[in-house]
Every structure is written in C-alpha cells, then in structure tokens.
C-alpha cells in the first residue's frame, strides 16, 4: 500500500514520518492566533464574511433528546436560515446522529434543499469506544441512509498511547467504506490531545489515512476549537498541500458561538492556509447557536438597528 508516497502502511514508516514533522512553537502559535484575532472586519467585508460563514455552517444537533420533528425544523432552517429574507444563503450541511440521517435527507429533498448535504457522526461518536465491527456497521448505516459526509472520531486512547498504526488503520478502513462518493471528516478531539505537537501529528496521520477534512472536536469536550488549535491544523493542511498537491479541508467545531468568533476563524484561514480555503468545500464550522448570531448580525447590517433574538428561531 502507498499513501501519497509518504508512508507505506507499516508501523515503521508511519512512525518515521511522524517523527520528521517539525514541532509546534506553542507561544508562537498562541500569540499569532491572538494577533490575527485583532483584525477589524467591517462594512462590506463584514457582509461578505457573514454570508460566507453562513454557507460554511454545519448546522448541528447532537442531543439524546433529538426528535424527528426537531430534525425537520433544523433541515428547514438549513435551507432557508432566515425565512423573511431569501438572499440569505443555505448552510453547508446538517450534522446529525446516525438514526436521523434518513429523516433529514428526506425532508431536505422535500423542501427544495437537495443542495444541502447531510453529515452523520459515526464510529461510536463521541467517545469512539467500541469494537471495529461496530464502528464499521455504524458508518455503513449512515451511508445507506443517505449521508453524504461522515464525521468519524479517532481512538484518542490509542493515539495517546502511541499506537498510531491502530488509529491509522481505523481511518483507512472507514475511508474504504466511504469510497469516492462520501466525504470523510476525521475528528481529532483536540481537547483530549493535550499538546499542539499531538494535534499536528494527528492531523497528518488523518490526512495520510485518507481524510477529506480534519475536524477539531466533537463538541462534547472543552476546550474545543480554540484559535491556536485551528491555526495548527490550518498549518498542517497547508504543509500537506505542499507535499502532495492535495487540499484537505478543516472544520472547527464547538465553542464558536458568535459572529466575532466565526470571523476570527475566517481570518485565520485566509492568513494561514490561504484564500483557496475560503469556501464551504474546504472550510466548515460545526455549530448550532452560531447561525442565529450570524443572522442577527446580518439584520443589524441590513437594517441599521439592533435586532432581537425573538426574531430568529430558538433551534
């Protein structure tokens, strides 16, 4: 087997490759992320950024209390985020649990939302603690139900114990299941990886194993998508592009609740990976509450006065 001509699928080659990765300058990454967060994005640039951010949202509900009704409401919101304003773009995707995929897909098709993709969280999300057979069945169910994107979690326990090949092979197997049609996002759960070096290692490991996207977090662990972590991952996809000529997407998820946070992420993307990444095919934001704040900021920009949360839907 050959993965981008960089590793051959053996433990030795994977270890060798990961060892060659440069370490992350922690202070440097944090101060650069903080510096970029001070960029001021106003007026027309802000309008553009808000619409772009809306089109990048993976509108997410991952609650034990999810019902088919809630999923349908979410689907409707994904297609027309603001029912009173048809100029608001649809979001990138809806992100739901496995058993809700078919409900979301059917409802989206019914209401003219064929262009909105359905993402399913998979492989024993959020902990990843299950046998490989269960993880494969979990993923197969989602694909059969019509998921266009699979958000899989890695086995953080194995990664932190240094069993990199185990993690690698799991991703490879899920990749094979997804084939060419289904997008694979690999969740690193950076809040559990402890160091930025680990984040960089895990990013490369996931990309080598065939990820289309690397995603920060499940949203169930805090801290989640902090700016320095996203910066490290964006540097990883940039470096990977230089090595392989292939662009991998990045999806921060968890903790991005308002427009200001979202625009900070877009600045990071533009300044780190480059403007090619500023589209929903290569950058997504996993969020639920964020969309309402984006809509309210959009209203403020349009009307010139402050809006009320009572004019946007609760979920």
């Amino acid at each position, binding site marked *: 087997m050959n993965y981008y001509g960089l590793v051959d699928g053996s433990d030795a080659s994977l270890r060798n490759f990961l060892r060659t990765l440069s370490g992350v300058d922690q202070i440097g990454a944090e101060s650069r992320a903080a510096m970029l967060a001070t960029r001021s994005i106003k007026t027309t640039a802000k309008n553009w950024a808000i619409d772009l951010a809306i089109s990048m949202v993976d509108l997410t509900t991952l609650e034990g209390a999810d019902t088919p009704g809630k999923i349908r409401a979410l689907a409707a919101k994904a297609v027309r985020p603001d029912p009173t304003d048809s100029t608001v773009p649809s979001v990138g995707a809806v992100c739901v649990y496995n058993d809700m995929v078919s409900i979301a897909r059917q409802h989206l098709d019914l209401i003219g939302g064929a262009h909105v993709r359905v993402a399913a969280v998979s492989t024993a999300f959020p902990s990843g603690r299950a046998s490989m057979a269960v993880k494969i069945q979990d993923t197969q169910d989602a694909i059969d139900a019509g998921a266009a994107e699979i958000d899989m979690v890695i086995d953080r326990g194995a990664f932190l114990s240094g069993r990199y090949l185990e993690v690698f092979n799991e991703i490879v197997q899920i990749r094979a299941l997804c084939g060419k049609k289904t997008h694979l996002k690999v969740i690193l759960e950076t809040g559990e990886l402890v160091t930025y070096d680990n984040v960089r290692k895990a990013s490369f490991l996931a990309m080598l194993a065939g990820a289309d996207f690397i995603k920060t977090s499940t949203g169930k662990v805090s801290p989640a998508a902090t700016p320095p972590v996203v910066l490290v991952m964006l540097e990883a996809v940039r470096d990977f592009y230089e090595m392989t000529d292939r662009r991998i997407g990045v999806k921060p998820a968890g903790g991005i609740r308002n427009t200001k946070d979202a625009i900070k992420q877009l600045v990071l993307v533009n300044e780190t990976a480059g403007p090619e990444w500023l589209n929903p095919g290569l950058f997504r934001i996993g969020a639920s509450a964020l969309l309402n704040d984006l809509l309210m900021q959009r209203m403020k920009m349009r009307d*010139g*006065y*402050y*809006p*009320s*949360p*009572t*004019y946007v839907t609760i979920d």
Partner: protein
Amino acid sequence: MNERLEVKKTYKLFIGGAFPRSESGRTYEAKGPDGAFIANSSLASRKDLRDAVVAARNAQIRWAGATAYNRGQILYRIAEMLEGRRAQFATEIAALDGISLQEAELEVHTAIDRWVWYAGWSDKLAAINGSTNPVAGPFYNFTIPEPMGVIGAIAPENQSLLGLVDAIAPIIVSGNTTVVLASTRAPLPAMTFAEVLATSDLPAGVCNILTGQKSELAPWFASHMDIDGLDISGVDESSRSDIKIAGVENLKRIHVFDGATTPQRIFAFMEAKTVWHPIGV
C-alpha cells in the same frame, strides 16, 4: 507632615453586575456649575448599550420569576444599603449641582424614601390592576398584570439621584429588567448607586446603568428591537417625537412621565395577561 495624596475614583459603567469601562475607551469630564473639573466619567457607546441589553435580557426571566415578595425584599435591601451611603451621595450632588450639603441631603432622603415607596408595591400590583372578569361561559376568567421584558430609560438631567430612582424603581419592581442612561451633566451619583446595587442582592443584569450623551444614545435605545418599552422623561422635548418614530418598528411602549409619584408609572411597563380556566371539566 506631607499632605496626603487623594485616591481619585474611576467612574465606569455598570453592565451585567460588572463595572467595565466603555468599549470605546472614551471618557468625559463631569463638571460643577462653575465649570470646575470634578471627575472623569465613562462615555458609553452604542455597543455598550448593545451589551447592556443582552445582560438585561438574560436576567429578565429569572427576575420576573422571583416571587413578588422576594423582589420587594431585595428592593428594601437596596434601600438599607443606600442609607449607609447617604454622605457620599450628598457630597457628589452638592459638588455637581453647586448646592449646600443640607439641600443635597434632602434630595438623597427623598430618593431613598421614594425607593422604599416603590418597593412596597411589588406584591400589591395584581391586587390593584388585576381582576376576575364575569364571562358568559363555564370559565373562571382572570386578568393579571405581567412585566413587559427589557425596558430602557433615559433619566432626567436634574435631580440626578432622585430622577434615577424614579426611572429605575417603577420598572424593576414588577419584574422588568432595565438599561438606564443616567444624567449626562451629573453622572456620578448614578455610578455610586450602581455600587449599591452591586453589593445588594439584586441579580446581575437586572439593572444596568450607562453614562454618556443622550443625543448619541437615545436613538439606539429607540430602535433596538430587544427593548420592549422606553421611558424618555429625560429626553429634550424637541427630540421626543423623533425618538417615538424610531421606536415604532417593534411597537415599543414609549412614555414620558410628568414627575408624579404614582403606581401608574409601574403599570405603564406592564401588560395584561388574561387566563380562561374551565369550570367543571
């Protein structure tokens, strides 16, 4: 012996139970009637107003959900704390208004008494303005006054403490939360009042106090879609109609009060809820 170097007080804003500086970093000078500098005060921007409204909205449901008795007790507690600060208020008012300490003390006493008067109304509102209504059907029919939500207030320029009390007390006693713009000319007693609120049992965000220019901020109060009512007693008569027009978009209740101390000031920011309860089902 060396003369002691005075520690000057920084007057900031009061938003969500905290004392931030203005987001804009601006300040202005509060002066006495002779033009002498007294202190620097924060010059709030529209974004400070925006943040204050968010704080007020977050606090509203819990404050309205507290029992009327509990709200009354908290307001009485504030009166107790005001009592201990009488000298500080009197000194600030005397300096800003150029009046004697005795005259200033009189205003402080009137303000505290007024606060207690409004506090007493908390558990009597439903008795005065609620009703059971005779209806032609098998129902008990009640009407109950309920708080509107987030109410803005532009406090009058003169009588900086008494005017502030008259603006805040009738709004929050019923379960509304508020964002108040204090007297521009005499902002200091308002921030001392905020210190009283911060050390009483009033939940954070129920009362938020800004200091700044009325001409700059009043239009943002009026157009803000998340403010449900507005007391513009402190706005110049010439600007009032513009403010009322700006408040039309969300059907904001906008009132001007003539200074009379009456429970109607409380009811102005309450709305009626009518309940039909079936009999014999």
